[in-house]
């Protein structure tokens, strides 16, 4: 029997394969169900939702909830929908993701190719910083931002996200570069190349996949963050999560579930797009830089 030449050397029989497909499909169903609920119910008029079965397809299809969530839903005293806040979120996320990824790459490079005393400890400390609960950070960070004059401003918010993302980006890049052959770096050093030269010419070109991982991770976390966004943003930098929260958590009145779901999916669209588009590179990126033999 011919051995599968590409991805795996493991052989499986027919029955096993059917079983595998079944399991995979069942799990796919499990993952898709909540999204299906959200999507179908966002296309129903409200009467159908309160009266009916959550799993049923819409009897009457309508995109009014989507239009409402985007531009006319009540967010505070203004009926603006989510539209104005999208740009704010983008302006916050893009710099924060870029900076933390670049720093993570540089850190990873330093920690794996330029060993010095205590580099393991520093890596350990950086890793541990992933665990800090945001609640204890809130008040002291507010104080620091106030002292630095960055309170309620976009740069302040970006700074906060960069700082708390560094642990993760460093983790990803460090693990990736650790598997990268050191000989190449040594050779370049002997040839007289300096730190940044080596980084630019040798490490960066192969870092595509892990950069994608880091970007996806950071993008997701920062885009979906609520606590920092609510506490540290100013009037012109309020991110979309705060607006979504205001839309969804209305305390009185009829809960327009269809609008809520539409708004929630709208809010998630950028991250979903990033996942679908970059998803291919995601798995490749997590492979510890190995060259297939």
């Amino acid at each position: 029997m011919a051995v599968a030449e590409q991805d795996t050397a493991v052989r499986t029989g027919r029955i096993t394969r059917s079983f595998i497909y079944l399991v995979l499909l069942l799990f796919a169903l499990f993952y898709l169900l909540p999204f299906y609920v959200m999507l179908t119910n966002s296309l129903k008029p409200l009467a159908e939702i309160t009266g009916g079965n959550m799993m049923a397809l819409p009897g009457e299809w309508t995109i009014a909830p989507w239009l409402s969530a985007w531009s006319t839903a009540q967010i505070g005293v203004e009926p603006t929908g989510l539209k104005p806040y999208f740009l704010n979120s983008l302006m916050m996320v893009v710099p924060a993701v870029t900076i933390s990824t670049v720093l993570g790459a540089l850190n990873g490079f330093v920690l794996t190719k330029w060993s010095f005393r205590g580099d393991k400890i520093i890596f350990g400390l950086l890793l541990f910083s992933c665990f800090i609960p945001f609640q204890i950070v809130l008040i002291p960070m507010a104080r620091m931002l106030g002292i630095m004059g960055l309170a309620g401003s976009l740069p302040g918010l970006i700074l906060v996200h960069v700082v708390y993302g560094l642990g993760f980006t460093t983790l990803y890049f460090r693990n990736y570069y650790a598997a990268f052959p050191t000989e190449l770096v040594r050779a370049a050093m002997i040839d007289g190349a300096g730190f940044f030269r080596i980084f630019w010419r040798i490490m960066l070109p192969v870092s595509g996949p892990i950069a994608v991982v880091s970007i996806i991770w950071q993008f997701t976390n920062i885009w979906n963050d609520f606590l920092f966004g609510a506490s540290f943003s100013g009037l012109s930098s309020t991110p979309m999560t705060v607006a979504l929260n205001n839309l969804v958590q209305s305390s009185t009145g009829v809960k327009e579930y269809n609008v809520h779901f539409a708004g929630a999916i709208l809010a998630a669209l950028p991250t979903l797009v990033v996942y679908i588009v970059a998803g291919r590179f995601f798995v490749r990126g997590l492979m510890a830089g190995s060259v297939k033999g």
Partner: protein
Amino acid sequence: MAKSATGTDFRTLLQDWIPKLVLSPSVAAMVVFVYGFIAFTFYLSFTDSKMLPSYDWVGLENYVRLWGLSHWWTAIGNLAIFATLYIVICTIIGLTLAILLDQKIRGEGMLRPIYLYPMALSFIVTGTAWKWFLDPGIGLENTMHLWGWESFKFGWIKDRDFAIYTIVIAAVWQTSGFVMAMFLAGLRGIDNEILKAAQIDGASNWNLYRRIVIPLLRPAFLSAIVILAHLAVKSYDLVVALTGGGPGRATELPATFMYSYTFTRNSMGIGAASAVIMLMTIAAIMTPYLYAELKEKK
């Protein structure tokens, strides 16, 4: 390739310093914004802070009060249950799916994003959907009844003893795809030669995976466990969106406890004490693990 003595020295000196310089902003940020704040919280736990930080020393009073609160015990107990189940189940599902997907499956390109996408959604987004789904009146139980299966019961979310398991379900849903991606990457990185050699030696598929593949996945296990553990500890949005800590306080977790006591109940001292305990526990568990793993790498 003779270089002048001073030239080499300066160059090497600079080269020696540049890496450290590059690393220093991150280290400085960590020192101030992470460890500095941890120290600040540590200090606060010994003060009588209520709504805002105060600096009047009260010694161990907050800790005494903390351990006297039944909520705290509930929260810790819940965390033990939740974290264990969450990490174990996510790892098993992630590993299984990765192994299955690795079998040259047609349609892998479509399945993978489906498994991954839950991670992209924040819980403000999915909390309501899950709450509906788990609600006996309008969710799965109701749908099953409508479809004819009258005796189906799934009211866990309203049951004080079982509600915590619904949180496990929702959390597993959100993250297991990501864990799968990590293991899949690890699997793809395994050299086929090793596997072929083992097969020639007559190893069965089962043994192949158990004896060779899984041990080779240790780095993936490290990343997965770090990510899962941090999510388990920080689970706040998920709990609030799904059960609000209820029924009663049955699904209280340390993250919700911390938030509640620091901000809602204006007892920042107790909140800080609980945070310190949490951090010490995490350190106690993660440090040996990290030490063991990092020592091996090199």
